[in-house]
């Protein structure tokens, strides 16, 4: 397991232009075509130069989260009071630190803080537990935690790291224990055809600054049965504060994006283009639209407000409105129906009316940091951490619309369970399972829909010429 935070935390020194102030270098920084692959990268320089800082910080709050592949599901029919209603992160790393405490979470499959951490309170059962995560915390411990496959977390007073590698395993991740009942998490092999997902999150507090740095990498992957293939996605975000000034940096890049087999770029406005020209004449464009797919380019968002800095960097986003293809979810939901008791079926009837909007984020990173000067160094400017210790988080957009929330992946510092008066476990399970069903639904058009394409593991679809190879 690699912990790369040492280099990443100093990422700002790599900014070659040396520009400071309000200029944001955004958009297409570099377009290089090589061997048919198109590389697009964004990068953003720090807004503020580094200033002298006091000897030790008076307090801090920071958080960071990263996932190479997030699936956000918006459907008001899912009774989980969050927005998105459900998220599933395929490989996740997150850290949160407040003066005197630290937590690091590594998960091969992360349903969002609300469900994973809030589960016991959410359904009022101490036995409830999300199975697929390793969590380290200080104080209170454990200082280190790890779990197969590829989950590791460590937390000390002033340093927290989480690193997750490999992506969801082939076999079931285990059982979602809801106290009274338990729900086996489905086998993911059939849903998601990639390997080698990786992400890390690091939080470090020194005498003079507090910072979070995160990164996520997705290797060559194929989505929707080859509708979309991509060679690589990387996203990084870092936020730090020296108690006077915040610094936010981020970068997101992807390479070799293909839609329906063609090398494409995504414009600011979400147009998919081939070599600068609009993508897809007639049929294929219509195919995409008929399937309910739209694209967003992603990029870097950051805000610095005094000592408080926030950075969010994401790679391309694929928005799939399932309404045109609602029937595709019938199969998985039908299977689900068979496994449920009559009571559950009653509680979970809503599942069968789902037509979610699904946002797939390739490379999803956020970092947030703020720090306060030492008490006895009075008079220094800078905003102290908010009194409840929670990082300020922008209110999520209430509309389940194409617009993505500013801080996707959740803000781990918010108290998740407190928001709920307690929900039946089945409802929570239902939301999670619905997400799986949706993710599974994604995989159901492969061969039938795109007979000339590739399957989720990148193999061509069709009938091989067995005799020809002899």
């Amino acid at each position, binding site marked *: 397991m690699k912990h790369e935070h040492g280099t990443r935390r100093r990422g700002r020194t790599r900014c070659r232009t040396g520009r400071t102030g309000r200029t944001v270098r955004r958009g297409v920084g570099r377009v290089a075509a090589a061997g048919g692959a198109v590389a697009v990268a964004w990068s953003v320089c720090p807004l503020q130069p580094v200033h002298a800082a006091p000897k030790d910080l008076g307090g801090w709050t920071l958080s960071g989260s990263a996932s190479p592949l997030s699936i956000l599901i918006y459907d008001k029919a899912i009774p989980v009071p969050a927005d998105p209603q459900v998220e599933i992160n395929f490989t996740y790393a997150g850290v949160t630190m407040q003066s005197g405490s630290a937590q690091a979470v590594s998960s091969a499959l992360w349903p969002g803080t609300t469900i994973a951490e809030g589960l016991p309170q959410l359904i009022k059962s101490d036995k409830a537990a999300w199975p697929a995560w390793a969590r380290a915390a200080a104080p209170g411990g454990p200082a280190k935690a790890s779990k197969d496959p590829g989950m590791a977390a460590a937390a000390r007073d002033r340093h927290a790291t989480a690193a997750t590698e490999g992506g969801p395993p082939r076999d079931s991740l285990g059982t979602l224990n809801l106290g009274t009942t338990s729900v086996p998490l489905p086998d993911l092999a059939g849903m998601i055809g990639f390997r080698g997902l990786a992400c890390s999150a690091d939080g470090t507090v020194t005498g003079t600054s507090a910072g979070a740095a995160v990164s996520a990498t997705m290797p060559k992957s194929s989505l929707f049965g080859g509708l979309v293939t991509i060679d690589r996605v990387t996203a990084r975000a870092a936020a730090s504060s020296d108690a006077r000034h915040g610094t936010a940096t981020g970068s997101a890049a992807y390479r070799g994006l293909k839609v329906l087999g063609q090398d494409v770029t995504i414009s600011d406005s979400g147009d998919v283009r081939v070599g600068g020209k609009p993508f897809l004449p007639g049929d294929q464009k219509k195919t995409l639209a008929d399937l309910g797919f739209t694209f967003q380019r992603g990029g870097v968002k950051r805000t610095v407000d005094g000592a408080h800095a926030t950075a969010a960097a994401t790679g391309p986003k694929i928005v799939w409105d399932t309404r045109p293809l609602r029937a595709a979810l019938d199969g998985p939901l039908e299977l689900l129906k068979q496994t449920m008791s009559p009571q559950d079926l009653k509680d979970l009837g809503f599942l069968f009316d789902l037509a979610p909007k699904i946002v797939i984020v390739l490379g999803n990173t956020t970092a947030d940091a703020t720090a306060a000067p030492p008490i006895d160094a009075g008079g220094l400017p800078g905003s102290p951490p908010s009194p409840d210790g929670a990082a300020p988080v922008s209110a999520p957009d209430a509309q389940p619309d194409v617009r993505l929330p500013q801080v996707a992946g959740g803000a781990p510092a918010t108290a998740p369970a407190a928001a709920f008066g307690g929900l039946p476990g089945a409802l929570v399970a239902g939301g999670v399972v619905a997400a799986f069903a949706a993710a599974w639904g994604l995989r159901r058009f492969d061969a039938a829909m795109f007979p000339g394409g590739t399957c989720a*593991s990148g193999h061509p679809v069709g009938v091989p010429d067995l005799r020809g190879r002899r």
Partner: protein
Amino acid sequence: MSAVLELTGVRAGYGRIEVLHGVDLDVPEGSLTALLGPNGAGKSTLLKTVAGLVRATSGHVHLSGVHVNGAAPGALARAGLVTVPEGRAVFPNLTVEENLRLMTYGGRREAAVRETAFGRFPRLAERRRSLAGSLSGGEQQMLALTRALVADPVVLLVDELSMGLAPMVVAELYDVLAGLADDGVTVLAVEQFAATVLAVADHAAVLVHGRIAAAGPPRRIGADLAELYLGGAA
């Protein structure tokens, strides 16, 4: 050694009943691979899924690096994926020779068909004027195998070759399959009773309750078999 047939997370079944619950299996090129497993484990279903007769609900069936989920059985057969189904598919009211003549249907020359049949199975030559229904089980199985062989298989799927046969005959049939594998044909042979096939197989895998419970060298699998079957039943 590359896997000419590769199953990853394959789920399949009949209507609402799922029989295969995520099967992972590699069948190396030019090998004789034995697929063992107790009654009802899903062995036949697995073969049907590979042959395109049952469609996988999820997972991947890769044949020579090509994703064949959803490919038509006929197209796969023409490409060289040939199945010898459970039970003997011979026409009992026709003689051996007449059965062979029917095998020329795909455009094969009758002489070539006879050469395949009588060359591999001299006993069929002796019984060529007998009704297929009057042949012994072993001889019927030879006739069924001949049908598969004249189709010039590249990948051969065989379901319970031994069913109802005496051990001696079974050994003889498996020698033929081992010879085919030596010639480069990839053979996946399903068996419930293991000893004979394990003696000639290059690889073995055990399917229990719709999942691969073990895979490896035949000797090791043979040693663990009782435990695997019982473990699966528990």
